[in-house]
């Protein structure tokens, strides 16, 4: 791979790549297959292998490009295959479909109906990205390239305009001008806090001391969010380019990319991207002939949620335990190895090349008054079209869930959405018309966080969900400061009693008390926001707490301690599945008397209420029933 020595050479390479690609494409189709973790989990590897074998068998391997790309976001329908130049979208592709796709679509240009998207309302079939509702209502400026680029090939990124923003910044903008551009774009940090990015950059530039460091935070710990994984896996060069521009702007020659241990493919693709950029001379000395030097190191996390906090992450980079430090002095002044350090989240960095290329004015025309640009959300939970969606700031939750997400499965009612992860809260159904931006979500007692939108239906218990988050944080609190360590423990105890049906009248007040103390006195944001899930559910779902405390009833039928299971003799076919699977050996067969059929019976004194019988009972039978707030009916007289 030859070195690119100047902005001019970069342009020449880009043109060369494009004309070679276009020349090839005008004759032949090419095939893109999502090779992100999501599609791989659904069997994309087998589909890719099948395509390779099929193209070899037909002696087409040299003519038709098969591209393993990043994640376009529609994970629900994976594995995803797109046949270009037409851009035909095939969903849920199986290795068995491959031969037909090559024969019909690639060679003859015909559509295969059964693999197209079917609109659940009209029954119509959609062929292209711009027709499929999931994509149609999005504004895709960050993840649009994922399906076109092989993330392991830097030239693919360059062909799509990559490193043009870096060339522009280095050749025609001063560092101050870059910072001004970022400031006037109105970009705010996508990692959770929403701090104005330009101001952070300016502080790091003005801070005294050297060397300075720039850092990518890809420790995406928020359970339910995966946009950073998709960007780092699918388009790592866009993040790297942003980081390099940041380095130039604040006067840093050394960058770090911190990727969490749970994302092995992101680690691999980031590592490849760094190596290829180095080979191309885009990292190293005198980049593009500008005199700017820059190097990047990759650091793997080792599994600790709190390490995503900026000061903790810097500790981890130093090889220490990833615990937070007090922020009397901002990390922009004294961060990594006590030097000025600029840390931004993956999605924030990926926005930078876009801002430099298209200008702050264009960028700030998207979004709301206080929140500019687009945001990638992970739309997951009880929603039909799960996946990553990129929309302008200010779109309402209802539009996201129903227009893009296609509504709730099984015709159930939406109960609310959880945003902001363990630091966020639950927003009830009545507020779904709220435009989503940093400020509106905070006003509702939740927060933007990294952008997870977890849709909850009537089968989700608000109290149990609050308990889940407190449990999660209890395990993840580093234990360094007392309010967080002890506060979470007490909250866990209280919520544990409530879901077990032993709640007391004063529990809610106690929870609110502990929460206010933790908010005021914790060392880092983990502790300061840890009570939000409990507080927001107490605020919006007080009735549900009271049902647990006063009636020992879980309206959503979730809390094990408050549910009794029983088997309806009229429906039971005595197949014995429940008996076989019951870990407590609480189920036995009751012989039918007088010609009646046999049926299964649960011994309530042995039942641990694990619910496995309920889940294993065949869906055609559904003889296992449950009740809450009162005891199960006597099965055998």
């Amino acid at each position, binding site marked *: 791979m030859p070195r690119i020595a100047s902005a001019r050479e970069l342009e020449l390479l880009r043109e060369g790549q494009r004309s070679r690609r276009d020349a090839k494409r005008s004759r032949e189709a090419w095939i893109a297959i999502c090779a992100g*973790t*999501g599609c*791989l*989990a*659904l069997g994309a590897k087998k589909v890719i292998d099948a395509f390779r074998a099929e193209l070899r068998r037909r002696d087409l391997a040299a003519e038709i490009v098969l591209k393993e790309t990043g994640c376009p976001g529609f*994970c*629900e329908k994976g594995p995803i295959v797109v046949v270009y130049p037409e851009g035909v979208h095939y969903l849920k592709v199986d290795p068995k479909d491959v031969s037909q796709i090559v024969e019909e679509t690639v060679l003859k240009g015909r559509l295969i109906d059964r693999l197209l998207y079917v609109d659940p309302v009209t029954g119509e079939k959609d062929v292209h990205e711009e027709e499929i509702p999931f994509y149609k209502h999005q504004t895709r400026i960050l993840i649009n390239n994922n399906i076109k680029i092989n993330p392991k090939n830097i030239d693919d990124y360059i062909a799509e305009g990559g490193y043009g923003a870096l060339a522009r910044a280095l050749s025609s903008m001063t560092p101050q001008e870059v910072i001004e551009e970022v400031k006037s774009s109105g970009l705010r940090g996508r990692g959770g806090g929403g701090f104005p990015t330009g101001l952070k950059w300016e502080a790091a530039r003005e801070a005294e001391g050297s060397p300075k460091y720039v850092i990518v935070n890809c420790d*995406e*710990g*928020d*359970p*339910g*969010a*995966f946009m950073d*994984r998709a960007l780092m896996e699918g388009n790592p060069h866009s993040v790297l380019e942003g980081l390099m521009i940041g380095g130039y702007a604040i006067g840093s020659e050394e960058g770090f990319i911190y990727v969490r*241990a*749970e*994302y*092995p493919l992101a680690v691999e693709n980031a590592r490849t991207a760094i190596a290829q950029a180095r080979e191309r001379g885009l990292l190293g000395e005198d980049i593009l002939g500008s005199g700017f030097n820059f190097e990047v190191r990759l*650091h*793997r*996390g*080792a*599994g*600790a*949620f709190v390490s995503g906090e900026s000061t903790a992450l810097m500790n*981890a*980079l*130093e*090889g*220490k*335990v*990833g*615990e937070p430090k007090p922020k009397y002095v901002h990390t922009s002044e004294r961060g990594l*190895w006590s030097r000025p350090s600029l840390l931004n989240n993956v999605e924030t960095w990926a926005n930078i090349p876009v801002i430099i290329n298209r200008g702050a004015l264009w960028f700030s025309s998207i979004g709301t008054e206080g929140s500019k640009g687009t945001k990638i959300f*992970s739309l*997951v*939970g*009880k929603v039909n079209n*799960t*996946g*990553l969606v990129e929309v302008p700031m200010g779109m309402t939750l209802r539009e996201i869930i129903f227009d893009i997400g296609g509504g709730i499965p099984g015709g159930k009612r939406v109960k609310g959405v*959880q945003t902001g*992860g363990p630091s966020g809260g639950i927003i009830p159904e009545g507020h779904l018309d709220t435009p989503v931006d940093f400020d509106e979500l905070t006003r509702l007692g939740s927060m933007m966080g990294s952008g*997870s939108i*977890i849709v*909850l239906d009537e089968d*989700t218990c608000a109290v149990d*969900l609050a308990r*889940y*988050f407190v449990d*999660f944080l209890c395990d*993840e609190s*580093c234990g360094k400061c007392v309010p967080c360590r002890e506060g979470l423990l007490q909250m866990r105890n209280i919520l544990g009693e409530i879901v077990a049906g032993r709640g007391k009248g004063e529990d809610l007040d106690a929870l609110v008390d502990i929460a206010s103390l933790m908010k005021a006195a914790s060392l880092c944001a983990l502790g300061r926001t840890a009570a939000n899930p409990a507080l927001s559910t107490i605020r919006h779902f007080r009735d549900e707490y009271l049902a647990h405390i006063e009636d020992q009833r879980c309206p959503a039928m979730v809390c094990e301690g408050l549910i009794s299971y029983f088997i309806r003799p009229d429906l039971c076919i005595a197949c014995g599945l429940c008996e076989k*699977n019951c*870990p407590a050996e609480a189920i036995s067969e009751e012989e039918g008397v007088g010609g009646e059929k046999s049926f299964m019976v649960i011994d309530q004194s042995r039942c641990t209420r*694990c*619910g*496995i019988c309920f*889940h294993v009972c065949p869906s055609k039978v559904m003889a296992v029933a449950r009740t809450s707030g009162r005891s199960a009916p006597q099965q055998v007289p």
Partner: protein
Amino acid sequence: MDAVDLVKVDEIIERYRGQEGFLIQLLLDLQGELNWIPRDLIDYLSERSGVPRSQIYRIASFYKAINLSPVGRHMIHVCMGTACQVRGAQKVLDYTASKLSIKPEETTPDQAFTLRKVNCLGCCSMGPVMTVDGEYHGGVTLEAAEKALKDLR
């Protein structure tokens, strides 16, 4: 540790010679090779690198990805992220544990399986998710979890 291990261990230590903040990366690499970090390896590391044993142990015990006890031949992770949670991950975990007759975070007595909870694997679209020896399974039902275990037996 036998002599063969030590050659490999020395080779990995060499990778980080002269670098600042190497300890976590070093432990991850060593674990990639050995699957866990035995106690005498910590002693050896300390001798070779001059980092106090207490410091190495503190790092190794803080981070979840580092195993300080041997793990089974097959590693099972059940994702407990929020998206998986609301789609029934707890049931998948309980069921898998009951099938293996161990608790989460334990290893079966025959050293065949280790069962772990993991906070989020970033496959939130297809929850509940579990990984078996690094291979992802999406939309896991109780039957699918049982089948994944049977396939390994």
